[in-house]
């Protein structure tokens, strides 16, 4: 495992309260891995805090959003020839010791993507009502169109292998919300995706991307619209066309 080059990709936006602990926990739990922090134009002290740590810091010149910040990290991994990328949130929601589990399972099963699932086994994690409905709906859609059981399609805690690093880093129009749409796209393209049960903490700082009523509704509409196009696109191309 330690023969492989592993990179943690941490997108951050105003995470001055959490980022230091997030970095230190990773270093403690997965000491052989490298870390890249993508500072998505934070207006607080995130940049100053990260600069003091022994990690790579990429400062974006303006706010590009979560997905583009993640893709920036993946592009870095591709350029530096990493074998595995672990997408890890900077808000303290993901637990560093769980990342190793994700990585092990990804390697052992020779999967292209391992998703850390909060719902594969019962945990204390609580979703809002709208997120629960969305998660269930997208799980059903994945089951119908890809014949795969994915219980947590909105999980950003993922381990990606070299093939996926290459694919994502070159992907034009990397989606604004890389969730169920990207899972469907990857499954229909013949990539192997597994889920690994993980424990996650509730995010207690920062602003949720899917809070309130309007945002989850907008998210659902956008997601369904994007999925429609992906299905449309794949109905014209051969399965396994990586």
């Amino acid at each position, binding site marked *: 495992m330690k023969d492989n080059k592993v990179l943690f990709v941490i997108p951050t936006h105003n995470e001055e309260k959490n980022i230091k602990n997030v970095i230190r926990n990773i270093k403690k739990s997965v000491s052989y891995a490298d870390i890249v922090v993508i500072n998505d134009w934070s207006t607080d002290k995130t940049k100053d805090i990260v600069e003091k740590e022994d990690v790579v810091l990429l400062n974006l*010149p303006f706010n590009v959003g979560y997905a583009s910040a993640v893709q920036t990290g993946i592009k870095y991994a591709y350029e530096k020839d990493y074998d595995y990328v672990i997408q890890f949130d900077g808000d303290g929601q993901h637990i560093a010791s769980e990342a190793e589990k994700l990585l092990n399972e990804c390697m052992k099963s020779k999967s292209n993507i391992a998703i850390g699932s909060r719902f594969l086994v019962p945990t204390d994690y609580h979703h809002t009502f709208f997120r629960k409905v969305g998660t269930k709906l997208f799980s059903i859609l994945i089951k119908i169109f890809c014949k795969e059981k994915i219980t947590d399609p909105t999980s950003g805690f993922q381990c990606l292998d070299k093939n996926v690093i290459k694919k994502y880093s070159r992907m034009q129009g990397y989606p604004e919300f890389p969730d169920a749409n990207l899972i469907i796209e990857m499954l229909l393209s013949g990539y192997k995706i597994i889920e690994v049960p993980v424990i996650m903490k509730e995010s207690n700082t920062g602003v949720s991307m899917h809070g309130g009523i309007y945002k989850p509704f907008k998210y659902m509409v*956008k997601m369904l*619209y994007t999925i429609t*196009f992906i299905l449309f*696109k794949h109905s014209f191309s051969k399965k396994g066309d990586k």
Partner: protein
Amino acid sequence: MKNIYFVIVIVLLITYISRNVIKSRVSVKESFFWIVGSFVALILAIFPKSMDSIAGFLGIAYAPTLFLLICVLFLLFMAFRDSKRIAEQNEKIVELGQQVAYLKNEVKKWKK
């Protein structure tokens, strides 16, 4: 069916937009309002009497005027949205240019 011509034109338009999205010439996100607008036009073309009812409800005597009004408002919305995007992108281009200039200077220093 008198409106078959309009239905064909709108279906062709939807096909054209979809093809561009599939070929990644337009992003899925950017195509959203065009597709929604096209489907609204398609529904109105298939059920022209609905236009009369809506026009009557809004107190518009001549129904085709309502269609033109909807089209003008939709295009104004899209034009304003594009203006907003252009302004935002101009800001970002300036910011990138400034950062490139700064980084070039840093690289020069390192070479020395």
